């Protein structure tokens, strides 16, 4: 039995006087896909952003692959390349081609030569089905294609875990499927994933575990089959009833 890839204990985070995360414990095992659901403002996004210290937690420990992210001696930039992150608004670099978007960190962080970085970037673009768009700029791509390039950008760095922050919320409905398709393939390839999303159907057939958060706490966690059909907590029940209405 190997240890968890991500191990969060007692995580707390405040913005000013408002405590947004009030003691989160969460472990994600290798190859597991964990889904986080919950009302808007419950702290899901902040939790994800603490996992690579885009937000600085106030208390708690975060271990990624056994390395303590909160330890002063940990090189956070070196760790971040192993923690892929995909954002709701894609955040592609508009002044760079798809290929350069994907190869930038390979060159600057992993210190690959340009040729090596571009070869790896092309492979990553191939995995998301966009090899032929390598030369295109973000403005020339659809939302779904942009998000897949963003996934390739994270994927190219060979992450041990990938964080998805509402990856399909900014997409037109007809483009959602292509992004979920890529995520499904990642799951089949054994990627460990932590996903904040409202795509309930995807959660039902791809997630190993669903976590329901409310007011900065984990209220309930269960396999999708259970949480969607017979949630234990009243708050979960209300939330799911509203979502599936």
């Amino acid at each position, binding site marked *: 039995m190997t240890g968890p890839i991500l191990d969060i204990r007692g995580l707390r985070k405040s913005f000013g006087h408002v405590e947004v995360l009030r003691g989160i414990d969460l472990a994600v095992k290798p190859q597991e896909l964990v889904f986080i659901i919950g009302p808007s403002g419950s702290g899901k996004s902040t939790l994800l952003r603490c996992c690579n210290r885009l937000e600085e937690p106030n208390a708690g420990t975060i271990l990624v692959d056994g390395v303590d992210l909160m330890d002063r001696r940990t090189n956070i930039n*070196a760790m971040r390349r192993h923690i892929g992150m995909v954002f709701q608004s894609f*955040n592609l*670099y508009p002044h760079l081609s798809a290929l350069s978007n994907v190869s930038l960190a390979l060159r*600057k*962080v992993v210190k690959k030569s340009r040729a090596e970085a571009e070869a790896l970037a092309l492979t990553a673009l191939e995995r998301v089905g966009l090899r032929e768009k390598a030369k295109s700029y973000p403005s020339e791509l659809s939302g779904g294609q942009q998000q897949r390039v*963003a996934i390739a950008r994270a994927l190219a*760095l060979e992450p041990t875990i990938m964080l998805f922050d509402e990856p399909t919320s900014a997409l037109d409905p007809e483009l959602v499927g292509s992004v979920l398709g890529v995520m499904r393939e990642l799951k089949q390839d054994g990627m460990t994933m932590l996903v904040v999303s409202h795509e309930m159907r995807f959660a039902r057939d791809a997630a190993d575990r669903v976590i329901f958060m409310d007011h900065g706490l984990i209220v309930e966690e269960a396999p999708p089959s259970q949480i969607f059909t017979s949630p234990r907590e009243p708050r979960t029940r209300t939330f799911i009833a509203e979502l599936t209405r």
Partner: protein
Amino acid sequence: MEALLNQFFNLDIMARALPLVLTGLKQTLLLCIVVIPLGLAGGLLVALLSLVPWRVFRWATILAIDFFRAVPPLVLLIFVYSGLPFAGIRLTPLAAVAVAFLLNNSSYYGEVYRAGIESVGRGQWDAARSTGLTLTQTLRNVVLPQAIRNVLPDLISNTVEVVKLTSLASVIALPELLYSADMARSLTFNTSPIVLAAGFYLLMLWPLVRLVSRLERRIAS
């Protein structure tokens, strides 16, 4: 009409003044080559300093920016050239202009860069940092290229102003374009050399001004 043409557009006088005016033009170009890169670099430094998270540091930078923007550049120039010798610092006219312009221009360029950096959304920082890029790598590869592209028209407009301001150097007897033309005017008792100098300014700046309008139109569309 005849008198007017004779006073402002006298080609004979212009031809006679041309060598002197050209030496002035050379000085003005030299000033630009010194002063513009200094201002662009100083401005970038100022903009980066104003991003530093230490509050006291940031306030000091903002105070300095405000100060050098409020003091007329002419006052600054005279102070640097004629005032500093009393403190034991004696500068050549060119060095004095370089220092005075660095102080003044960095503040203006700095504000332009700062607006540019602020125009780049937080998502760009998030994305870059999440892939492990350091702060400096993020600035250099992700934020500044976009920031500069967003404010390119303002950077060029500001540069046009800087070129015009180089004529201030005439007050400390640096024989730049306007100074030389004015000398020719006083030798010939005729305004045509000034018109000639104006022609050279126009020749230098018109392409830049055109470029600004084109860039602005492109950004608007």
